[in-house]
């Protein structure tokens, strides 16, 4: 919530669904900032898969940095897009990884508005690729070729060897069609990037975090200082309140009085 307010994401002028989404982003991704050991949110990232079913490289993750709501442009374009978060860390074998994060709750990917100065899509130039109008495609291009407004974020992204994109939604399974649309948009303009995009774009759902927090529930007080344990319990409650629980039908039905069965003589 703090990050959302600090980035002016909860002003009443913004549509309610966007405020809800940004507050959710703030609640969940702030865990990388506020937990003394970010192992748990990294485990969430470890549940993410790409179209080939491969998982995100998080083994031995250390040195995490986080930037919320970063704007980027593409070379040769005057437009800008904003991505919900950029995470950077060092993984096994010293690989520096940058991960752009696009979060959705009730709404699907926004395929309209880069902060458009002109029309929605544009032609690439010799200087580099152009925005496609497809949010996931544009954010992937941003991670690969973007120019970031925040110099610190720019340095982080430029210093990495792997630049990936994560799509976080309430789907139960990887939303193949949305990925295919993004792939199509990029491949139509840059056929050479198709394989990379298939490999470098990942998806996870919010429910996976609820699953992790449920697994950890009894160990929270042992593993974390009291304040952090309370924070994690509250995040779990928040996910439940938003209906972002793992699919466990009938598990939460309450007992009623036992049925009165007829006596058998």
């Amino acid at each position, binding site marked *: 919530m703090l990050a959302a307010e600090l980035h002016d994401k909860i002003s009443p002028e913004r549509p309610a669904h966007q405020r809800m989404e940004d507050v959710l982003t703030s609640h969940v991704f702030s865990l990388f900032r506020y937990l003394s050991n970010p192992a748990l949110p990294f485990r969430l990232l470890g549940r993410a898969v790409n179209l080939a079913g491969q998982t995100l490289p998080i083994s031995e993750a250390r040195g995490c940095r986080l930037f919320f709501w970063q704007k980027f442009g593409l070379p040769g374009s005057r437009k800008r897009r904003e991505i919900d978060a950029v995470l950077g860390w060092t993984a096994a074998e010293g690989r520096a990884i940058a991960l752009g994060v696009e979060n959705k709750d009730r709404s699907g990917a926004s395929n309209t508005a880069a902060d458009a100065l002109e029309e929605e899509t544009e032609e690439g130039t010799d200087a580099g690729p152009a925005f496609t109008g497809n949010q996931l495609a544009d954010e992937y291009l941003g991670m690969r070729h973007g120019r970031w407004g925040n110099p610190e974020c720019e340095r982080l992204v430029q210093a990495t060897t792997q630049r990936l994109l994560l799509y976080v939604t309430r*789907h*139960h*399974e*990887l*939303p*193949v*069609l949305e990925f295919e649309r993004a792939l199509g948009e990029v491949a139509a303009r840059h056929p050479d990037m198709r394989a990379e995009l298939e490999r470098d774009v990942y998806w996870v759902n919010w429910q996976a975090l609820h699953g992790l927090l449920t697994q950890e529930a009894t160990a929270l007080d042992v593993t974390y200082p009291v304040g952090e344990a309370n924070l994690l319990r509250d995040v779990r409650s928040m996910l439940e309140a938003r*209906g972002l629980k793992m*699919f*466990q*039908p*009938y598990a*939460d*039905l*309450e*007992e*009623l*009085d036992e049925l009165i069965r007829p006596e058998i003589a």
Partner: protein
Amino acid sequence: MTEREKIERTLRNMHRLCQHWAETLSIIEERMKNAHFAMKGETYARVEPSGSFDKPEAWVPRSLARFYRRADDSTKGVGVCLHFGPYSPSQVEALDQLKVTLPAASVSLVEVTTAAAFKGQRKLHKMLSEAGWWNVTGQRIVRDVLVESNVKTIPGQALTYFVDLFSLRTLAGIAQLVVDPMVKMYDGEREHVAEARLQVFRLREEEAVAEDRTGE
């Protein structure tokens, strides 16, 4: 437990059941979209809550259905219906005769002569809720787990199987018992559910099956 507590718990349970069933349909829908099917209508599903106080039996949703095709001009479609009850005694009897117990899900392949027959979402959902067991003619059991029928709500033929709703507790269960067979039925493997020996309702007594085999 006091009466007040019973009512509170019952309504909370009802609310949770609706959430579980809605989520079950959402999971089915996501998989069908991933298999390049288009659903009929947005997230509308046919429910029949009635506001009428002389029809309180219709206040509680009895079923939810969804219909899918890959192309608008296709004369075949597939669909799923979640049957919760409370159905009328004669409807329960009709399901009993097929050895189907509630709550259940039915999955149907429906074929019509012209694609125009598939217009009208309410009709489609009613047809899906009835296919194989109610308001049908020409009912014939196929390989113990499928039932052919002529549906009346729209003029067409249906091939239907039933599965226990309690088998649909996991994403894998929903995929294996509903989505994958439904896609295969649409793609021409009409009797996949029998060939794969999936854990669905057997539509007649074991003894009857044994008699048939003896007869062969």
